[in-house]
């Protein structure tokens, strides 16, 4: 087993990795930027090193500094978490060149799945279904036009070199194709330094369903079933669950097999996720592969009973998987809600500030993964995620009810969050029926957004109590007693006397 790990990340995923390290007896080394000095992941680690100022490029994305810390701290492995450098083959190679173990896939797999057009070709060769499309580095306008006709409209122009919504255009008619290609190329060039684009059929009312895969370094690859991730807003996931209310057992087997084939085609080792786009007719197509651990991995952990992060360390240590595909099964139902510091009523702009109080819910089947504690600042430099709330129960309806109950008990003061938006989504008929597709929220946002609640008189009373209790706030109204303490016996107006009738 590996002995000492540099966790090249922050926030809740760093805390998650720390837990696995503790349980496996791996010494943990955390890194922190100037604004993360008091963060939970720093407090929980065995050792912690300062790596630079808040902007990620100066800290969490600085390969040289991270390698320096790994060397100084005498780590034998690096876990990159998700985001940041987790899918950087440059970082992965640098870690390996430094003689350390990379808790993740081989750099070649990261690289092969990193360029979308390359990944598509690989998948086609491996017999994995891909979205009908067209790619060619040297196509003429005429050739693109022909390709557009054969794919059919609407179609998407997508950037080959990156994602995140950049370099994507939806084209509804042949006349708009060439201008869209030019525009997408420009944006892609600016965002990724790579103007390559390709065409793909645009699938309406599509679902995003992904398969977790896990492979050891001895040739064993399994899938750990699906996660339904169609509850998205502008391509950002909000709620994930397993099992998917939409796929059939046959689809599960077929998609699982396709995911395993995809992983094997790139010689994948360790944990990864193969994303599929699923049509209303229940066809599925390879979309892309995420060559890292994902945010929503707890959903899979709860329905399979496996600890994915510990498995990552075990695989990285050279161990063989102790189970086969036949040993695996899904039990019950898990739902994950991402709680963000954002203002749903103001275009979901991040609501940065101090988390004055955070009391997560507790109880049977309630899991909270968080890197935030009361008093923490939510910084402009990082993802404004407060916590992931992951609920487990025997079936989907029970899980939804339990999630609603848990959200009602959650207390988060000091910043605006999407908590009431999550509640509205879980209460909506479309969610309960399992009919949300990836564009649903974008298309129906106004209807889904809850109105600002009417002021509960207890909220008003509570606010007043709070101010009464805090002398400096009590002075706001101008009613100050001698010492500002309204609980002082000197401020009573009722004739109270010790030892005598009042």
């Amino acid at each position, binding site marked *: 087993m590996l002995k000492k790990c540099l966790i090249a990340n922050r926030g809740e995923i760093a805390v998650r990795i720390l837990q696995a390290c503790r349980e496996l007896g791996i010494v943990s080394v955390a890194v922190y930027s100037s604004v993360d000095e008091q963060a939970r992941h720093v407090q929980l680690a065995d050792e912690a090193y300062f790596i630079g100022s808040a902007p990620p490029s100066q800290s969490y994305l600085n390969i040289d500094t991270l390698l320096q810390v790994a060397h100084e701290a005498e780590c034998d492995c690096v876990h990159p978490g998700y985001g940041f450098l987790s899918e950087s083959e440059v970082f992965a190679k640098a870690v390996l060149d430094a003689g350390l173990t990379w808790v993740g896939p081989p750099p070649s797999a990261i690289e092969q799945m990193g360029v979308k057009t390359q990944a598509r070709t690989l998948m086609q060769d491996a017999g994995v279904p891909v979205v009908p499309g067209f790619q060619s580095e040297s196509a003429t306008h005429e050739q693109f036009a022909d390709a557009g006709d054969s794919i059919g409209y609407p179609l998407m122009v997508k950037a080959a070199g990156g994602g995140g919504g950049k370099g994507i255009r939806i084209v509804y008619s042949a006349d708009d194709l060439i201008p869209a290609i030019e525009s997408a190329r420009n944006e892609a060039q600016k965002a990724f330094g790579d103007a390559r684009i390709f065409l793909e059929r645009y699938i309406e009312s599509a679902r995003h369903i992904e398969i977790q895969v896990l492979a050891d370094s001895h040739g064993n690859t399994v899938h750990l079933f699906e996660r339904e991730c169609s509850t998205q807003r502008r391509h950002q996931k909000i709620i994930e669950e397993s099992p998917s209310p939409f796929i059939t057992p046959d689809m599960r087997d077929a998609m699982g097999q396709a995911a395993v084939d995809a992983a094997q085609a790139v010689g994948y080792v360790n944990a990864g996720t193969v994303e599929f786009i699923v049509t209303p007719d229940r066809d599925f197509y390879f979309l892309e592969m995420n060559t890292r651990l994902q945010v929503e991995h707890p959903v899979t952990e709860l329905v399979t009973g496996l600890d994915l992060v510990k498995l990552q360390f075990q695989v990285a240590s050279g161990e063989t998987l102790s189970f086969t595909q036949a040993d695996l099964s899904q039990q019950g139902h898990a739902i994950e809600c991402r709680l963000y510091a954002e203002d749903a009523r*103001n275009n979901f*702009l*991040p*609501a*940065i*500030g*101090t988390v*004055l*109080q955070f*009391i997560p819910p507790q109880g049977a089947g309630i899991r909270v993964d968080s890197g935030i504690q009361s008093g923490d600042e939510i910084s*402009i430099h990082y*993802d*404004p995620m407060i916590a992931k709330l992951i609920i487990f129960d025997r079936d989907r309806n029970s899980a939804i009810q339990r999630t609603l109950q848990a959200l*009602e*008990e959650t*207390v*988060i*003061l*000091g910043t*605006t*969050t999407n*908590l*009431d938006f999550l509640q509205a989504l879980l209460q909506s008929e479309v969610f309960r029926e399992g009919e949300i597709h990836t564009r649903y929220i974008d298309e129906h946002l106004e209807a889904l957004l809850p109105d*600002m*609640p009417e*002021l*509960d*008189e*207890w*909220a*008003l*009373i*509570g*606010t*007043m*109590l*709070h*101010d*009464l*209790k*805090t002398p400096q*706030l*009590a002075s*706001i*109204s*101008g*009613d100050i007693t001698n010492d500002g303490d*309204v*609980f002082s016996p000197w401020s*009573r107006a*009722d004739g*109270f006397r010790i030892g005598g009738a*009042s």
Partner: protein
Amino acid sequence: MTQQYQYGSETFTIQLELLSDGSYLARIGEREIRFYAQQNLNGQWLIQHQGKQIPLYTASEDDRRYVQVNGTHYTLEAVDTRKRRRGSSGSSGDLTAQMPGQVVDVLVETGATVEKGQTLLILEAMKMEIRVSVPMAGEVKVIHVSAGDVVERGQVLIEVG
């Protein structure tokens, strides 16, 4: 003690008194509510009213008041009745930051004439670009920031008159 709070676009007035038997009396408009309340070491309130217990959580920062009660969160602002409240938008022609971020680019110079809706500044936060534009035509009086500055919510960026 009487206090006014703003919630959404409405202002609410509440009066709260501690009575001789240790209970509280709240007056909101015509309503009078009598209850007991205790605060534990975590700052959580426990209200006792008509045989029921209501847990309640509060926190504050500057003028803002945060409350969670009965499964719902509320954000209010204390209205300072003694002096005129410092408005968050300053004078009508000021551009303020709607959220904390970093200035990417200032697109005008002092003295420039600007049109209604013209973008004067670009802010970046959370990998998003926010174009800050002026709500009315005028002349750029004072530019308080430059590219690279980190700004807070409510901070005045450019004064236009």
